[in-house]
């Protein structure tokens, strides 16, 4: 697999990965604001898929129809839709595209659900790798606290209830998230994650994120013409 830069796309893709509650969404939002204020052509991909794929996914989740294989495939369908209709055109048009989660989320989650890792990776090999991937590595307890404090209703698949880890959704969520974290850490070197210490406060993290982006991407190439 190659990065967008290696495939000669004019755009650059920056992805953030990490557990729910790791603070990655906050960090990518602040990165976006910084780039926008400099007049950089930036696009934040919100993972809004076509209604069609989304309908099927939410039906499958609501009715608890999904098995590990169909869970994996329907999310791959969803990703492919965004990839083909949104990401590739933006990358061709020379944008800096910021993605809250990318294929590594699927790699981690589907593997924990018992899908063979080679199968999952094979399915996603149509996608180019991000040019930069930040991994927000927070202690499991820190992420869990942030989620469990704020949002007490856990959804079935989100809590990994389909894995029958525990009949208690909170306990199931803890075990599930712990296993996902292990998968992320195992991928970290292979995919050159930029590992962030997500236990730290927002500002020092954002400072590192901005500096790394500025070092690795020549932002002057991506500025909109001054009007």
């Amino acid at each position, binding site marked *: 697999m190659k990065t967008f830069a290696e495939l000669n796309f004019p755009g650059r893709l920056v992805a953030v990965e990490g557990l729910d509650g790791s603070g990655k969404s906050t960090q990518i939002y602040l990165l976006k604001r910084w780039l926008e204020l400099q007049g950089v052509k930036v696009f934040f991909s919100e993972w809004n898929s076509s209604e069609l794929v989304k309908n*099927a996914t939410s039906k499958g989740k609501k009715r608890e129809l999904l*098995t590990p294989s169909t869970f994996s495939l*329907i999310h791959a369908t969803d990703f492919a839709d965004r990839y083909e*209709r949104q990401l590739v055109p933006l990358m061709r048009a020379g944008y800096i595209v910021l993605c809250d989660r990318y294929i590594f989320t699927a790699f981690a989650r589907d593997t924990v659900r018992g*899908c063979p890792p080679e199968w999952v990776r094979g399915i996603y090999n149509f996608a180019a790798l991000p040019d930069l991937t930040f991994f927000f590595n927070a202690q499991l307890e820190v992420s869990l606290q942030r989620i469990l404090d704020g949002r007490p209703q856990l959804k079935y698949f989100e809590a990994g209830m389909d894995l029958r880890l525990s009949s208690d959704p909170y306990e199931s969520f803890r075990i599930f998230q712990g296993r996902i974290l292990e998968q992320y850490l195992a991928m970290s070197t292979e995919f050159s994650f930029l590992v962030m210490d997500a236990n730290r406060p927002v500002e020092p993290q954002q400072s590192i994120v901005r500096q790394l982006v500025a070092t690795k991407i020549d932002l002057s190439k991506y500025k909109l013409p001054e009007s």
Partner: protein
Amino acid sequence: MSRSKRSPVSRTPAGNGRVLIPRPSPKRFYGHGIPGVNLVELAGRLIVVEGADGSGRSTQIARLVQWLEGCGHATVQVGLKRSTLVSEELEQAKQGNILSHITLSLFYATDFADQLENIILPALKAGFMVLADRYIYTLMVRDLVRGMDEKWLKNLYGIALVPDAVFYLSVSPEQLVQRNFAKNQALDYWESGMDLGLSRDMFDSFLQYQALVEKQFKRLQAGYAFTIVDGDRPVQEISGELQQRMELVLAGR
């Protein structure tokens, strides 16, 4: 079920009511398969009928079902775009032609996986004869014709169970045109491969597309061991051949 039409069958239901018990047949997946499936438990048979629209698939499947049930075997039928999970959405996607290639391909794979796990595997476990009106081969062929990577497709469909038999009804494109007109009074957009831009003339496009499909099927034949059945013959003759072949399958040969 009543058997109104008598077909030239080698085996008719025994008058004494004795039902032949199929010999066990070893099963395997093409690739990684579905996690957690115990293949030894799959006692039934998986029979696939492939072929273009108008090749006589559904007629032959209906006749096979009638014959199998007459012989005392329980049957279940599956086919493309019939899953609870995504069949409606897939139909809409096809109508509107709004999804890109890989997306549509994965959407079909999801539909297939849903039926595999929720219908095919449980039915086989219960000892049913599962008749599949098309299987992964049609899906692969459609994508191959559209230039998709064969390795990618093979990995994707590594979840599929290897059928006990695959019958490919081979019908010449000229015959297919006639049958499609007789059935629908018009050619279908997708079955004519109009999305490929082969020709703006639908008739030309249909012939060209079906020839490409046929070529890919023949190419897959070696690796996937299809039985090619001459579909240009009369209905009765074809079902006679299929029944004979089914007997071998049931005998575990």
